[in-house]
């Protein structure tokens, strides 16, 4: 297995009534294991669409996405869902926590979804405790999302994304709703956790300071990779 993910000839077009809006055009991209990649580009350039396709939340109109040598074109919707639960973690700009569940229930969701059971095993409890401690949320574990700060919410979202031990973590503007200082703390935390566990991380961001921390920066413009993927040292 050379790469974690391989995209070849990917295209995606949205339809708004009779109007066709191309979001991605002929994307070829390979992503290695343990890589930290930033995706940058102006609004509407297709960053989130690319992230959704890599995260197997959506299907391309054409082209092929290979994940750990599995051609995902042949996957059914339920197989894609199982793959997401086992291999991919998501962190969103809006945190996307379930408002009526406590923080610990939110964080435990991927484990419960993966096992299909109603409660956590002893091992899973240990894992939950580990991430609550690691992300400094133990004191807040019984709180509902509306009772905590934005930074704590995003830490909970990170814990939820990592608890399933994914091979890939996708973060869509994770600092967009946070102040600069908290944002940088969150990115630092994410980077450390992913590098420690050798998790591939792809982050969509508008913030060049954050983008520069990645091993590789991918720039999108009008649905195309504006240049070949290049390492951060060549940026600017």
């Amino acid at each position, binding site marked *: 297995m050379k790469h974690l993910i391989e995209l070849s000839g990917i295209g995606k077009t949205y339809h708004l009534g009779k109007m066709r809006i191309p979001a991605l055009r002929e994307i070829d991209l390979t992503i290695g294991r343990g890589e930290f990649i930033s995706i940058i580009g102006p609004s509407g350039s297709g960053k989130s669409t690319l992230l*959704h396709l890599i995260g197997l939340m*959506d299907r391309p109109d054409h082209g092929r996405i290979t994940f750990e040598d599995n051609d995902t074109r042949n996957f059914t919707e339920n197989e894609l*869902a199982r793959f997401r*639960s086992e291999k991919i973690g998501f962190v969103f700009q809006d945190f*996307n926590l379930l408002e009526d*569940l406590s923080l610990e*229930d939110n964080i435990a969701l991927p484990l*419960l*979804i993966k096992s299909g059971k109603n409660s956590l095993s002893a091992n899973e409890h240990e894992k939950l405790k580990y991430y609550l401690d690691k992300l400094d949320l133990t004191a807040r574990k019984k709180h509902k999302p509306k009772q905590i700060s934005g930074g704590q919410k995003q830490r909970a979202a990170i814990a939820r994304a990592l608890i399933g031990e994914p091979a890939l973590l996708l973060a869509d503007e994770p600092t967009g709703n946070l102040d600069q200082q908290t944002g940088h703390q969150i990115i630092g935390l994410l980077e450390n956790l992913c590098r420690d566990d050798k998790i591939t991380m792809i982050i969509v961001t508008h913030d060049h300071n954050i983008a520069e921390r990645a091993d590789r920066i991918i720039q999108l413009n009008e649905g195309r990779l504006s240049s070949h993927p290049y390492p951060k040292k060549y940026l600017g």
Partner: protein
Amino acid sequence: MYSKLIINNWKAQPGKILLVYAALTIGLLLITLLSTLNHGLKNFFFQEGQQSKLLRELSVKPAGAKLDLNIVSLLPQAQLTPTMIEKIKAIPEVVEVLPTNTINGISSVQISLLGQIFQTDSLLYGAPYELLDSPTVQPQTWSQNDEPYPAVISTKLVDLYNYSFAAANNLPQVTPENFLGSEVTILLNKSTFFDTDTSTVKQLKARIVGFSPNVKLLGLTLPLETINRLNQNVLNKPVQNFLDATVRVQSPEDLTKVKNQLEEMGLNVTTAEESLKSLERLFSLTDLALNIFFAIIILLTGLLISSTFLAKIAEKSREIAILKTLGLSQNRVSLLYLLEAGLVGLAASVSGIILALLFAIPLEFLINQSLQNLLNKPEQFFVFQFDQLLLLIIFSIFISCCFTFFPARKAAKLDPAEILAR
């Protein structure tokens, strides 16, 4: 996982879910009450009809005898002869032959009830004690030979009087106790409605000693021997033949064979089974009406369930998208909503049944109060059966899930990428 997510889901559209729960509960309450009442009535009619004794009985009439009540000609022209009775007794499967006869002349009766004297023409029948089969008639009273002669009336006659004649004419209702022990004056050769020769009128006394469901509806029934003796000694018109007979066979399996043999003898034969069939036809109509009513209730509550779950799903679409992103499969998203609907169905059906049980107690009391003088009535109007209630619960869950199927599929098909991009 499901329990927490279902509890989480319940918080969406709580008012509408409560409405669905209330509508389903009321629907199930009505369905339970009506079906248990229907069941109670069926039990009453069919158990009465299906008693093993009745299933071993045939009613035999001579060919050509169409009416029991024949005031004008006084006696049906065709009658069962003693020879025929002997022939019937000779059939190996026949256990008992219980013939009835009637007085050979016109008669009217006077009875004093609740301070009023009622006088009407009436047929007088004769029946053996074995036919009465009623605990209200004691064998020793039935065997009396002297005046006042023992007489029984049909239990159905009391009901007919109370719930049609008395109700229509604003007369007081009577109870069996009002009748029991009452003296009846019988005037043989006299009619209340047309002129008769007064010189031939004979006055007799009888006393009501009980009730029986097996005697003729209109008229007084006296012991068979008494009627024979009156025909011979008082009216001087002896009658050898019988009006009809009840034939009892060894077992219900013998019924068809004996019926065929009796019909070959030229007799008209009816069985309890045939009466039951007409009753079944009547109940199939009530079943149909109830089923239509139930279908309307189910359709209305079903539409409410569908619209509520569509609203819930619209409200929770972002959460569904998050769960799908985290790996919840389409099947499990569907299952989540089907489980929720099933739980609502379960809770509503259990509440509906509990309410029906609670409502049935005062309703049973009220019905019994209003029909307290009715002799032929079920011991229990609302009959709850465990398997029937279980079926209702399963049915309620099934219906809730059926009407949630489309909204649940819609939830499962939501595109998480599109929703989270909003």
